[in-house]
């Protein structure tokens, strides 16, 4: 009796597992167009029949999670009839997933928010060149990979935000200056887990060399108004609260504060100034978000069409007006706020350098005790 029950119970469990598996499996073989069975669409995109008649789907692994992205994909689908399937995740995890999936990976495009990671994706061998004259004319070479493995979608500048009350813009000059005694106890910055800080330091390693970059990081740690905490918006609030006078921030967070539903946040946005550092020297640190074409893309034509659409002037203007990022297409219309900040000199760096130096940057951050 004992044996029989145990056996049947185990058998029942196994059957259950198998059924769940087959449930998902058979869904994918039906080639249906409804989205109710999540795996259908992914597998359907790969079906032989569709591949021959020109693919009607694009599969994206993306580390950008903005609402505006979804709107643009919908717009693209309306215009072309090509369905866009999305998995959102963290960039490094998605790279790892693509690596492990290998040739069978369903991903057509990889999208992320950092030039260093784009380079990491390239060196991981999960991308292939994007061959499109439209993309090349949409996006200047400075925002494209040398081998066209990826192309920028938007740019963000890491600026110095300052208290309009206590700091005159004339007192500000460079990132390097923030590490001098002049700013002791006045610098606000988020923790070293932030990729934005890692990339900024990576750029300084490239421009000034490792030793000076380490000195800089040490100086910033010595000048911190408080231990690093919170996000970029929290640094702006800390300025207005009087905890510190200057903060390293991405520009679009200032835009978000000014457009917040919370009147108090709008006030914060109004009380801080935006300063583009290093105008006389190496230029303001700029980073990009961008898209790469997956090496084993099964819907290559559709994927390239989507890249062409996203880098087009129209989509670029939407990116910019909804998210306050800078467009990479010079033809795109700038929103008023971004125009009001004026033109500025950008760091002239190959974005792949950010990726190459990222590890060193993290080591330095650990070493100098930047929490």
């Amino acid at each position, binding site marked *: 009796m*004992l044996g029989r*029950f145990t*056996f049947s*119970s*185990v058998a029942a*469990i196994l059957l259950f597992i198998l059924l*769940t*598996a087959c449930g*998902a*499996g058979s869904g*994918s*073989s039906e080639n249906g167009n409804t*989205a109710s069975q*999540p*795996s259908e669409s*992914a*597998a359907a995109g*790969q079906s*032989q029949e569709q*591949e021959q008649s020109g693919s009607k789907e694009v*599969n994206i692994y993306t580390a950008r*999670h903005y609402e505006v992205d979804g709107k643009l994909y919908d717009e693209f689908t309306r215009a072309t009839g090509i369905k866009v*399937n*999305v*998995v*959102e*995740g*963290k960039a*490094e*995890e998605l790279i790892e997933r693509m690596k*492990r*999936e290998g*040739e*069978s990976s*369903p991903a057509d495009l990889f999208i992320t928010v950092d030039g260093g990671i784009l380079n*990491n994706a390239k060196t991981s061998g999960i991308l292939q060149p994007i061959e499109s004259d439209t993309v090349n004319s949409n996006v200047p070479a400075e925002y494209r990979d040398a081998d066209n493995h990826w192309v920028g979608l938007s740019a963000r500048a890491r600026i110095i935000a300052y208290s309009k009350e206590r700091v005159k813009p004339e007192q500000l000059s460079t990132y390097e200056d923030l590490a001098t005694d002049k700013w002791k106890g006045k610098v606000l910055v988020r923790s070293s*887990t932030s*990729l934005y800080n*890692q990339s900024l330091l990576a750029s300084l390693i490239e421009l000034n060399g490792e030793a000076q970059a380490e000195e800089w990081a040490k100086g910033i740690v010595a000048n911190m108004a*408080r231990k*690093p*905490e*919170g*996000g970029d*918006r929290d640094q702006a*609030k*800390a300025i207005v609260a009087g905890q510190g006078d200057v903060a390293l921030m991405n520009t679009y967070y200032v835009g*978000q504060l000014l457009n*917040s*539903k*919370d009147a108090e946040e709008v*006030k*914060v946005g109004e009380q801080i100034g935006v300063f583009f550092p290093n105008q006389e020297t190496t230029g303001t640190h700029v980073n990009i978000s961008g898209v790469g074409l997956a090496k084993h893309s099964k819907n290559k034509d559709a994927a390239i069409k989507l890249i062409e659409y996203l880098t087009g002037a129209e989509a670029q203007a939407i990116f910019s007006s909804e998210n306050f990022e800078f467009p990479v297409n010079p033809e795109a219309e700038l929103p008023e706020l971004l125009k009001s900040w004026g033109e500025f000199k950008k760091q002239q760096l190959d974005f792949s350098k950010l990726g190459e130096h*990222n*590890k060193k*940057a*993290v*080591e330095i951050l*650990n070493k100098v005790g930047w*929490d």
Partner: protein
Amino acid sequence: MNGWTISSLIVAAAILLPVFFILVSVAQGPGENWSHIKQYVLKDAVMQSAWLALLTGLFTTGLGVGLAWLTAAYDFPLSRLFRWTFALPLAIPPYIAAYTYSAMLGYTGVVQTTLRNTFGLQLSQGWFNIMSVQGAVFIFTMFLYPYVYLIARAFLESQTGAYVENARLLGRGPWSVFWLVVLPISRPAIAGGVILVCFEVLGDYGVVSYFGISTISTAIFKTWFGMYDIASASRLAAWLMIGVLGLFLLERQLRRQRRYSATSGKSRPLVRRRLRGAGGAAACMFGAVVMLVSFVIPVAQLVVWATWTADEVWHEGFYRIIGDTVAVAIVPTALTMVAAAIVAVSVRQFDGIFGYMLAKAVTAGYSIPGAIIAIGVLAVFIKLDGWLAPVYVALRLGTGEAPLVLSLSIVMLVAAYVVRFMATGYNALEAGFEKIGPQYAEASRLLGRGRTQTFLRVELPLLKGALLSGTVLTFVEIVKELPLALLLRPFNFQTLATKTYQYASDERIHEASVPALCIVVVSLASVYLLNRIERGMEV
């Protein structure tokens, strides 16, 4: 070796497979970054993690057991309501609580703006700073204590009647009954809950990275994401797991010779005493403060934010996200409870260290950051797809020579949930088994019932309460789970947690409040359901 042992070994093997992928990294030896990590990162990370786990463990024990005792042993105004509402903070993911509290207390938050705009008061920011180790301990304590509370209350209500009454008859006052009787005898139940809390704290990334606290978990991600060294990151995770297993062994050694189950056949349920006057008022006040801080205030804040942003954020698609979230939580919850029962029954057959290690091994997935487990699961499933490729080709599933089917489907995520949340299901069942002791099973076996019959006819009815609370705990955990869902989900599949993350990671906490509230509502519904079922059983 009987059927139970064999099935439990199969379960253990399936669960340990992804964990094994992580442990292998220890055997591979240190990589080039390891000496750097050891020199600059490890000491701080280990210290801070230990502090966080220790302090949170102490406070959750105090709060969880205290509230369990209060509601199990006394009747006071609103006590019937508190009995189930004390479980509610579980519905709020700690990282959402952290964002909510720091935003409320921050410069533009409701506290400071009220002081500033209404009373013209501007206090030093130091008064409001929650982003510290103490702040993290506060968040973890207030939002994780229900683990201890739920398990401890189930134990106290059904098990301690005789002891407590004897102590009372012998003239002990309420405090000494609590310290000398209640705390010591509920130790296994407390241990089960506190271990879950420590797992959560050690595996947490959201709260600590936002608060700028360096822990083993942040070190793991800095190594993986910043230094692109997934091997060293896995190595850190493996050491974390080994350390946690060591803690288990220590706890077991400390209580090895004691038995905690009732020795007489009858365990008398606790008779509640009525607290009147000042005592009743104080108990009610205390309960109200806990509920306010751990549930009402943060939820009220989320509701306010949701009214600001719902127009933009809420759309038709949300019903589908809610439906998907619930559907994808039910299946792994059921699988987890079945697997947990199989292991719990067979573990009880060997008294030695083997059974113990088996039990701890299957729950170890909980102590490692979810993203690391996710990679292990991904590796296993892609291998599995490789082996099954001929079958897929024969059945015309997928395309190409090496089609991916399982790893592109929801099955992978479901399996990952089971691997990760065996701990919540198993620990609840284990506490239930501790409570009923071995004598029923022994008597049943003596009377000629088989192991399976004994389980179904004798133990299962006694385990109902533990089974239910384990089910709800696991379900709620899965509903709010983030890192596994983020990496392992199929295309176009969103859960409420991934939607919340989408906003929160971009510092849009106002927008994130809408999906976060949905998580709270779904969890609330399941806790309420549990309460209804429990009451039904009492009658």
